């Protein structure tokens, strides 16, 4: 566990905390009625939830239950119960996305990495909410979850990064969306900007890497929903927009909004996304 650049700040009940886990950085901010030390203790417990999920599901750790499962050394039944839970969730999302999200690798092993990060992040977030923290914002390595009630207008607004690495010279904002007075609380982005082509197309021959889009951002009702759809849309490519438009018509209560960036920089989006763009004069 390496230390982040800035681990914890606490001022007038407002906390900011970062946890390095799963090769990325999770940042939590919010309001706490507890003291500085007690608040930190709870945040570290939330961090432990992430690390526990990483220990179980990481395929980068040779002896994690998932690595052993992938090598055929163990069965789902012998793994911790959360493995079966995540397996079921993956199957559920595979059905919902018409097979465009799949946790089965080109080698036919089980790789729930596309879901575990946000699944664990949601669990950490939920824990913090049980501790009485309010106005909680989470940035799980680029995937955002907003609290149900936020008093500051800025907190409802989420910037979407350009389809380049945040560390690159071209880093910058593609657009800003405003989720106030919408049913959406989660914003997840998939793309090749940070980690290269790491999403396979479950329907392509040999499950080749998907590359028709540079980036997909999904605005959803829950973190896992937005994350899974972002992966699915990236795998599907440009036609994902039509898929999601049809899905939204059939399931208005679970509707999501999607904006995609083509490799040449052009945009496309689902019907309704345009209403989410922040208005430059919305603060007037």
């Amino acid at each position, binding site marked *: 566990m390496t230390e982040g650049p800035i681990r914890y700040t606490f001022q007038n009940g407002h906390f900011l905390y970062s946890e390095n886990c799963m090769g990325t950085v999770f940042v939590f901010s919010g309001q706490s009625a507890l003291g500085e030390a007690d608040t930190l203790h709870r945040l570290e417990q939330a961090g432990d939830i992430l690390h526990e999920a990483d220990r179980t599901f990481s395929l980068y750790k040779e002896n994690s239950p998932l690595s052993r499962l992938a090598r055929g050394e163990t069965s789902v039944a012998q793994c911790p119960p959360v493995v079966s839970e995540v397996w079921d969730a993956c199957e559920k999302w595979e059905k919902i996305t018409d097979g465009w999200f799949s946790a089965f690798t080109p080698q036919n092993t089980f790789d729930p990495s596309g879901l575990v990060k946000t699944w664990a992040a949601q669990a950490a977030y939920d824990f913090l909410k049980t501790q009485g923290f309010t106005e909680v914002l989470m940035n799980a390595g680029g*995937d955002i979850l907003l609290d149900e009630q936020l008093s500051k207008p800025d907190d409802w607004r989420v910037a979407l990064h350009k389809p380049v690495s945040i560390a690159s010279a071209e880093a910058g904002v593609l657009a800003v969306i405003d989720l106030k007075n919408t049913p959406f609380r989660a914003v997840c982005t998939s793309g090749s900007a940070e980690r290269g082509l790491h999403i396979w197309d479950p329907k392509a021959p040999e499950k080749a890497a998907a590359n028709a889009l540079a980036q997909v951002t999904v605005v959803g009702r829950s973190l896992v929903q937005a994350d899974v759809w972002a992966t699915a849309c990236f795998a599907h490519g440009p036609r994902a927009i039509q898929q999601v438009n049809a899905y939204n018509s059939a399931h208005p209560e679970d509707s999501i909004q999607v904006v995609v960036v083509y490799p040449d920089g052009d945009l496309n989006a689902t019907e309704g996304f345009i209403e989410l763009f922040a208005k430059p004069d919305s603060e007037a």
Partner: protein
Amino acid sequence: MRKTRHRITNSLLALFALAGGVVLTQHFAGSGSSGSFSTTASGSSSTPSSSTSAAPTTGKPDKTVTSAAVPYQFGTVQLTVTRTSGKISKIDIGSSSATNGRQSAYAYLVQYAIASQGTNFSNLSGATYTTDAFKQALSSAITKLG
């Protein structure tokens, strides 16, 4: 250049704000560089949409204006913008087109995206960055603030 630099600074500051508790201040809301629609007409002589300036104004009369058909990378776009009580209340897409076989890829999305760039925000969504990329982004933001 100035505009570009501000945009970059803005996003990195947001990251920095997340990790460092720095208050993200408004850099350019209301300024001419906040991405009013005319900005993207890039030198077009016809910029009627300038009346939709992002600057919040209360005294201006309600008005509807239609822009010239502006060519852009993939076709043309023409917007009709309605201002009510000093705010943009409606934007309609007139005769817009897109080429490259992208039947549903419309220039107006780009226009909206650009217009939104000047807005404050407190969080940044992007492809899952590595810990190293995050640190690098932070350190370069710090350098720029330097």
